[in-house]
């Protein structure tokens, strides 16, 4: 996140990172608005040009909270051939994959078919973005793996898209966002979890999205920083919903990844859930175990943006609760709050934990040999 580190970091990457890493949160972009057209029926080209995406937020273009950088992305990440940051495979290879020795890069396309009020359009866009991931990225560089984007508000349609892609080695997870029409434990989303479990694919829940609800329990805040910090609160509430609705009782083999919402809050949320559950469990008899146990068994966490307390032992104490086997390193490339792999982990980590953090956990979770 610290922009001042960036130029220096560019030069010493090759020597700093000797071993391969997994980057579990890469955001591929379209070079032009029409780049999806080959994957979309013609009626949607005209529809999009006429009516736009008709999202669960008011802006036709751009986010309601303006980002800190154009496209929320690094100013040094514009491809030389033009187009927005993250839209060129060759430049991504040159800037991210090669110098950082990325052996596995998980793509999480944003601004896609989710959070859209027209459900047919949402489904068409989700399918298109999945075909586009194969065509433009994963078929061209075997290090990259896609995430299955789904029409998030229509469970059966989403489940059909997951089943269509099941077994396709181009994809390693299903992608949802944290903010939807309802909290993510609600039954309308269960067909997604059922299909993901059946396909043996983890469900990644990336911070962001719009579902029509104010993004705090007290209405809409004023600033971009409030939205950014607030992703952790939305993610906590979404996870509480998933646990308290009994999703992991219903789908015991389901694995989920909390992406880009921090992990430092995990212990305190789990303690609160456990403490309240002890008193109110008669309301939720389907929650059979202390909530913290579901979280420990079923949840993985991407690291970016890493919490960085003043004293590193505080970070290690938090990670020890979560488990060194549950963290997945991520840069968030090409976004501005990129975590530099050579600098993100303080000194004092064992070789085994370091290897798990940077690569081993991701390969195991995503089934990459």
């Amino acid at each position: 996140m610290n922009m001042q580190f960036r130029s220096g970091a560019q030069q010493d990457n090759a020597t700093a990172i000797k071993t391969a890493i997994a980057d579990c949160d890469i955001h591929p972009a379209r070079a032009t608005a029409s780049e999806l057209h080959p994957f979309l029926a013609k009626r949607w080209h005209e529809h999009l040009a006429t009516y736009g995406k008709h999202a669960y937020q008011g802006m036709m273009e751009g986010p309601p909270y303006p980002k800190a950088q154009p496209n929320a992305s690094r100013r040094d990440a514009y491809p030389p051939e033009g187009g927005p940051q993250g839209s060129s495979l060759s430049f991504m290879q040159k800037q991210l994959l090669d110098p950082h020795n990325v052996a596995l890069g998980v793509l999480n396309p944003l601004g896609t078919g989710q959070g859209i009020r027209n459900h047919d359009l949402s489904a068409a866009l989700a399918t298109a973005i999945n075909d586009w991931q194969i065509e433009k990225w994963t078929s061209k560089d075997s290090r990259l793996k896609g995430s299955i984007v789904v029409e998030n508000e229509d469970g059966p349609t989403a489940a059909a898209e997951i089943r269509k892609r099941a077994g396709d080695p181009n994809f390693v997870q299903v992608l949802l966002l944290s903010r939807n029409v309802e909290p993510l434990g609600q039954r309308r989303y269960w067909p997604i979890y059922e299909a993901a479990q059946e396909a043996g694919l983890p469900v990644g829940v990336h911070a962001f999205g719009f579902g029509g609800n104010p993004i705090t329990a007290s209405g809409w805040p004023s600033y971009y920083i409030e939205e950014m910090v607030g992703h952790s609160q939305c993610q906590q509430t979404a996870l509480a919903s998933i646990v308290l609705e009994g999703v992991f009782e219903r789908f015991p083999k389901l694995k989920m990844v909390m992406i880009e919402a921090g992990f430092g809050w995990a212990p305190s949320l789990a303690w609160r859930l456990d403490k309240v559950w002890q008193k109110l469990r008669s309301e939720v008899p389907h929650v059979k175990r202390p909530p913290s146990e579901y979280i420990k068994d079923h949840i993985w966490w991407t690291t970016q943006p890493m919490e960085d307390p003043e004293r590193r032992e505080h970070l290690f104490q938090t990670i020890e609760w979560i488990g060194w086997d549950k963290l997945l390193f991520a840069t968030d490339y090409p976004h501005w709050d990129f975590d530099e792999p050579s600098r993100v982990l303080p000194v004092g980590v064992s070789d085994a934990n370091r290897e798990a953090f940077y690569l081993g956990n991701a390969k195991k979770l995503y089934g990459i040999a």
Partner: protein
Amino acid sequence: MTAPIAGGVDCDLHPAVPHLTSLLPYMNDYWRDQVTTRGMTDLLSQSYPTNSPITGRADWRPAKGKPGESVDDLLKHALAPFQTAFGILNPLYGVQLVFSEDMADAFCRALNDWLVKEWLDKDARLRGSIVIPAQSIEKAVAEIERCATDKRFVQVLMLVAGDMPLGKRHYWPIYATCERLGLPIGIHAGSNYHNAPTSVGWGSYHIEDYVAQAQAFQTQMTSLIVEGVFAKYPNLKMVMLESGFTWLPSYLWRLHKFWRGVRMETPWVDRPPIEIVRSNIRFSLQPVDAPPEPETLNRLFDHMQSDELLLFSTDYPHWQFDGDSALPEGLSPDLVRRIMIDNPHATYARLKDSVAKETTP
């Protein structure tokens, strides 16, 4: 358990209004008629269903009526066991839930007058919080000024989830008034349900609403800090009540990181957020959302890097602990003294005022 010391301040006690009709003597003719003619029922917020286990500890429940309804019970259950010197009463009656600002104003006035007559006048140890109709700034300020002449009111009370984030400039006249009058703002768990009770919509269960209070406190602290409330009102204190506090360290790590990254957006935030918290924001002790092992809790106190942040509370009659173990295991005697006596007195300046008044013939 850690032994309490005598002379402490319990900063979060909940006196229950038996029924809306209990407030009728404190309303004018118009509102008495409105309540009666329209057949209005009890103003119970679903943040605290009367029979929910968390709303009333089993051994604190009366044979009849709501937990927290009786002054004698409160004195016996909450003050006597801890030899408490002062108890601050935070009524959670659902007067903020109504949508009409006129009605909310009338009910808040009645509630505050009821608190004086039915509670503060009954025992010299009791202190009160002023409940305000926050959706009308003019009426809220007027009610604060009306009640503040009684020094037994030591704080203004707001809910953690209301119409707008609490840092919004809309609310600033309330903060200016409170800073001028030496009244901290107590922000208590609970929603007025004018928005969905969580940041991702309506969940299915009471337990979800309760868990989500902690996240609501987090977003409110972000709002208060980044909008610049404490830059504008540096002497204003805010107290997070029934908020939990074990989330505070990791929350501040994240806020600090983003503040460093995008502080250009809110340039008036000229100090790291943790410094603002240390100087202006406090937290009530209960609930302690942590495992019972003393080493975990002590590690958390180490993460908080301050012994001035916590204020003793039982959260009576809510069920947060059993027996007399309001203080978690493993606190040092010095920390107990700070939590029970020093920190509350440093926060609630009016406690000294009212002591001085009582000892002066």
